[in-house]
């Protein structure tokens, strides 16, 4: 009782946010978890199926493809935008006219992934890149990029990378500009070339920023949805779905809410686990 009496003031401030999170988040998560053990189409009464919805994720070829695609997306989203962002930031740091390039690289981030999807879908259509390839006399290289797996997944990853590299670059630039000068001077005096400087001085000093960038990318890449839905709707024949797309499709296109819920839970647990291990390993190293 004394806790309430002592802190009612502060609790009242917290109340709106707490209510919001409880109603729209915690309740929804619990509901989703419960539904995942049933088969339910929104019309008839739910039917208990136990762990069936979870087991089938690793057995049905459609879901296995989705799992595989999700892993590809996560890996490539980690390596390319982060790596490219880092390289761009190092290159831009010393460049004259940096401001122009910074803006050019950052601008794609200002548009939503949905718009990115629409733009790139047009680029991959027969009047986009393929037209260019034909003009260059390389017609044999043209493909129906979005209709042929696995080209479609990689095509969409390129579109997503185009959008997100700019932010990573900016974050790294901020990090780079806040680095102390001394270690670099010391390394230069010791005769380190640019390569060794980069790997043994710059990178370790950038660690805090890198942790943030990689962490953000990890979580975002698990839930990639809009760019895929707009460009291929997960197709053709469900070959380019990721877990978030499968979850949406099962729930709102096929009205298989139990299956969608199971996929949502697996996705959530996977991203929480991966993020937790990642943070434990990097921050836990305590430097």
């Amino acid at each position: 009782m004394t806790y309430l009496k002592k802190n009612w003031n502060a609790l009242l401030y917290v109340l709106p946010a707490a209510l919001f999170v409880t109603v729209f988040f915690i309740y929804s998560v619990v509901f989703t978890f419960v539904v995942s053990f049933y088969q339910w189409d929104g019309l008839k009464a739910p039917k208990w199926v136990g762990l069936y919805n979870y087991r089938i994720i690793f057995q049905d070829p459609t879901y296995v493809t989705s799992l595989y695609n999700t892993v590809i997306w996560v890996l490539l989203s980690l390596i390319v935008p982060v790596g490219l962002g880092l390289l761009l930031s190092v290159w831009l740091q010393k460049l004259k006219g940096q401001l122009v390039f910074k803006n050019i690289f950052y601008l794609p981030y200002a548009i939503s992934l949905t718009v990115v999807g629409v733009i790139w879908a047009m680029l991959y259509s027969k009047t986009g890149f393929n037209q260019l390839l034909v003009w260059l006399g390389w017609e044999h290289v043209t493909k129906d990029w979005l209709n042929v797996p696995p080209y479609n997944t990689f095509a969409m990853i390129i579109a997503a990378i185009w959008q997100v590299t700019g932010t990573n670059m900016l974050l790294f630039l901020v990090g780079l500009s806040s680095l102390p000068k001394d270690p670099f001077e010391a390394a230069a005096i010791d005769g380190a070339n640019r390569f060794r400087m980069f790997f043994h001085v710059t990178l370790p000093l950038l660690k805090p920023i890198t942790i943030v960038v990689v962490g953000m990318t990890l979580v975002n890449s698990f839930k990639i949805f809009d760019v895929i839905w707009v460009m291929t709707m997960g197709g053709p024949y469900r070959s380019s779905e990721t877990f978030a797309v499968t979850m949406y499709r099962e729930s709102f296109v096929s009205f298989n809410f139990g299956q969608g819920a199971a996929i949502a839970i697996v996705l959530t647990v996977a991203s929480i686990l991966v993020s937790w291990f990642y943070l434990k390993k990097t921050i836990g190293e305590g430097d």
Partner: protein
Amino acid sequence: MPGKKAKWILALLLSFALVMAACGGGSGKNNQGTSGPQSDSGGKGGDSGSQQKITAKFYHDLPAMTDYLNEINPVVEKNDNVTYEIIPYSDTTSYQTTVRVGLSTKDAADIFKWWNGFRMKELADAGHLADMTKEWEAMVADGVDPGMAAPLTFDGKTYGIPGGVHYWVVYYNKKIFDEHQLKEPTTWEEFIALCDTLKSKGITPLGLTVTDFWPGFIWFEDLAIGMHPEFYEKLVIGQAKYTDPEAVEIMELWKSMIDKGYFSQPLDFNNEVAPAMMNGEFAMYLKGTWYTTFFEAVGMKAGEDYSAFILPSVNPANGYTVISEVTPFLVSEHSNNKDNAIKALAALTKKEAHEKWLTLYGGLPIRKDVAPSHPVTKKLAEEVSGKGYKLYTRFWEATPAELSEYASNEFVRFILNPESYMEVLNNIEDKAARYWAENK
């Protein structure tokens, strides 16, 4: 202490705002759609002084339908004192979800556009549709074709009205046909000869689409009803297998057409097909009679620049066959405005309203005393009734949603990889066998 009081008020206000937002937002963002403008009742409205004004909420997911309903409102208001309050949705997926989930609640849609066949049957079986059998008796007495009730009847009860009745036909670029002195084919051999002639002149015979995956079934169903119509009818209700010899035969014919190069590259039917046919990139396109508006939108004139014929049956012993689809308008059983909604919906089937509706939404008439004014539709309607065509329900509705979605995706796999036809048939049969084992 003034500080303390201010904090109290602020916290209270925030909580209040939050609760309000939660309640208001709870019914979904799209729910409060833009209602159509009030029909101007300054006119011949209220001719039967004792008649109550009947309004009903009309839910739909077709952007143009808002315009159609706005145009029909003056007509139904004048004749029956009915006004439709329009609730539009821009996205089919969120529309289906919202309507479906709302059916068992107080927010059940009064009138809503839906799909027939199994997609409607599951709503009827779950008791979510208002029985309109009695209303149909009055409608038939008023002149509606009683045969139109068949696709909307389950277990002896009829639900809703047919909002749009469409056939699946082969559109063609008339200018190309005229230029090369080509005629509409009346037999399957003539159709194949036509395709070969076009190919020899460097024109791709048939346009193709796989956009959004549902179009995968289009050629399958048309070839099926021309080759093995009874098999098709059994297949869609689980009484035949996708691996039966009839199905293999259908796929092999389809494959032969693909291998001969009859089909174009896949195009988006929303915005690429019509311009491509207009520009002569291909000569013919198999689609529903509702697709006429797409050709007109790019400036093609019905009867002059484009026309349509019904695909001749592959096997002439099967007679005249055509795929039909019916877009039903339904009333929810749990709507709190059910009786008015039923009356409001029936008003759309009266002569003047139906005549006007046909000019807006297109399709074939549901009344014997109304003829379509659209030249292409008129020609097709005359042919279908004149030659005694047998109608077959479109695959999408004829078989349960779970199977039509899966099969359509697999058919797209086949279209893009024709050698995979046996794998495709096996995949669909696996899914179908499991479904029918659990559901019958």
